[in-house]
């Protein structure tokens, strides 16, 4: 197992390097250059040259690339052009909000999605199955901000159960009230997703030969479904949920925007509006590293659940 973890971590190194290279290229593909993009077309040559020197853009491309790699790998993501604070500090300030949101969404998704998916698979082609399929398809069709807006209209504007705008508050009840709608919004999309994956995975497992073997052994139905069915059905669910993490983060950006919640989403939009390229570049690197990390975690969970992975 330890060897598997080490191997998996080593495998992430080239991915990380390639990701950094891509970010580097992407930023350098900006029409004109980053300095011009930041200061606008009207900027004087002098101020442009000054900014280029500050950003190191006057160096040869190879030198720039190596400096970039050195900075990024050393955790030095630069200083935000708009706020003047280090990028890492900016991110650290809002990251808890985004993590709280995505974690609640996954939790809600697992609590509702797993049982729904299992029931749908066990009652295949009966009404619970049809209902869960229609519900999960609908849930999957919502762009995060659309469902967010509709929920905001229903629960905050008309029913007034929840605040329309999030406000920073140390009060726990207020905190939960602020979190409730956005978390529920993302959580329902997650539920739709997990229901769907669980259903199809469970259907596959129920058709396996070893389920027939278990029936031939006289394993009672409850144990058959939980011990032999669910455990094996969970393996693909874990993987797919891990892969979905990137989309979840993307959705959280929109949801934060709709509910005016602080978080990475708001930070990104601010950076876009201010054309703050150091911040954007840092955010891209941090986001992608995060997704790579989650992928590694997913693989490790996979290895724990499925004995075939780590032994081979």
């Amino acid at each position, binding site marked *: 197992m330890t060897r598997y973890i080490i191997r998996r971590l080593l495998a992430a190194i080239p991915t990380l390097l390639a990701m950094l290279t891509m970010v580097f290229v992407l930023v350098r593909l900006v029409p004109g250059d980053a300095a011009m993009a930041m200061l606008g077309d009207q900027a004087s040559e002098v101020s442009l040259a000054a900014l280029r020197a500050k950003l190191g853009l006057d160096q040869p491309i190879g030198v720039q690339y190596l400096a970039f790699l050195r900075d990024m790998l050393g955790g030095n993501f630069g200083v935000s052009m708009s706020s003047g604070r280090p990028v890492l500090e900016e991110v650290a300030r809002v990251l808890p909000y985004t993590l709280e949101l995505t974690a609640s969404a996954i939790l809600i998704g697992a609590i509702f999605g797993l049982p729904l998916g299992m029931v749908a698979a066990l009652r*295949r*082609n009966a009404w619970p199955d049809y209902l869960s399929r229609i519900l999960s398809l609908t849930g999957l069709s919502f762009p995060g901000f659309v469902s967010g807006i509709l929920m905001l209209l229903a629960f905050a504007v008309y029913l007034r159960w929840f605040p329309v705008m999030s406000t920073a508050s140390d009060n726990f009840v207020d905190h939960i009230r602020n979190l409730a709608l956005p978390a529920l919004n993302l959580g329902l999309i997650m539920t739709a997703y997990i229901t769907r994956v669980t259903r199809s995975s469970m259907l596959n497992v129920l058709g*396996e*030969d*070893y389920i*027939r*073997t*278990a*029936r*031939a*052994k*006289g*394993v*009672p*139905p409850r*144990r058959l479904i939980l*011990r*032999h069915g669910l*455990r*094996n059905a969970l*393996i693909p669910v874990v993987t797919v949920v891990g892969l979905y993490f990137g989309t979840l983060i993307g959705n959280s950006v929109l949801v934060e925007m709709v509910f005016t919640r602080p978080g990475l989403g708001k930070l990104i939009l601010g950076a876009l509006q201010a054309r703050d390229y150091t911040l954007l570049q840092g955010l891209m690197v941090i986001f992608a590293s995060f997704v790579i990390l989650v992928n590694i975690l997913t693989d490790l969970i996979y290895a724990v*659940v*499925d*004995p*075939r992975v780590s*032994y*081979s």
Partner: protein
Amino acid sequence: MTALLDIRGLTTEFRVNGHWHAAIQDVNLSLAANETLAVVGESGSGKSVTALSALRLLPQAGARIARGEILFEGRDLAKLSQRQMAKVRGDEIAMIFQEPMTSLNPTMTVGDQIAEVLMIHRGMSHGAALKEARDLLDEVRVPDPGRRITEYPHQFSGGMRQRAMIAIALACRPKVLLADEPTTALDVTVQHQVLTLLDDLKRERGMGVIFITHNLGVVAQIADRVAVMYAGEIVETADCTRLFANPAHPYTEALLRAMPRVDRRADTLEPIPGSVPSITARPAGCHFAPRCGYVRPECGHHPALGPISGAGGSDHQARCILRAKAEEAAWTV
């Protein structure tokens, strides 16, 4: 000899495109203790459906037992609830399958999978059941059973997995073992080891074994009695020695002549024309008539399974008008 398991008039139907079709029709089989009954047939003959029906293991949607009784020690299994049936399975009647690679749960250790049967049916503790599992693996001649019970199926070879399957099946000392093509996926040298093992275990425990296979060679090596199936029906049944010496049904006869043999020069390989009819397209009369070399106009009537002429004192029966005893040449329409 009293029958341990007595299948009477069993008909199982499958739903194909919204209509019910009989996969097996009016199947009668009886099995005594310490007896190996081979059910032999090609794909589509219904031999596996017969075994799965007997243990009520067919998928609940799309398959049903339409008629017939499955009498086990006087009880009709066809009438039991699924819950009662679960108590019989793995305890009094056990089953092993063709695919040793996929028939074991990949996320449970082999020891736990054997122990599970004992815990369910014998109420044993996990520790006691594991100890018993170790002994069972030893009994099916898996080397180093103490280590092996802690391993997962993917660490076992094909032959070893089939031995583990046998250990699971035999854990509760069942009276009847249904073996559905248990050696088909194995190499011949391993097949022979497993066949020998099954035969030894049958003798030691006095089990009745229903052995399902498509391989006439395997039948000849292990069976006491044989039932030949074709297109959902038993077409011939006899004592093993008698069947191979005097096959009565034209299908059995043709099958033996179509099989290339390792022990003699076979320049006389005689193919059977055509192929097995699908479940939705079985002929109205004798199912084998379209492929039969002896076909006559009478074969348009559906023949019954009955004693053959010249059977002597044996219970050699065939489903063929031409081979039936003259006075009993009855047919059903």
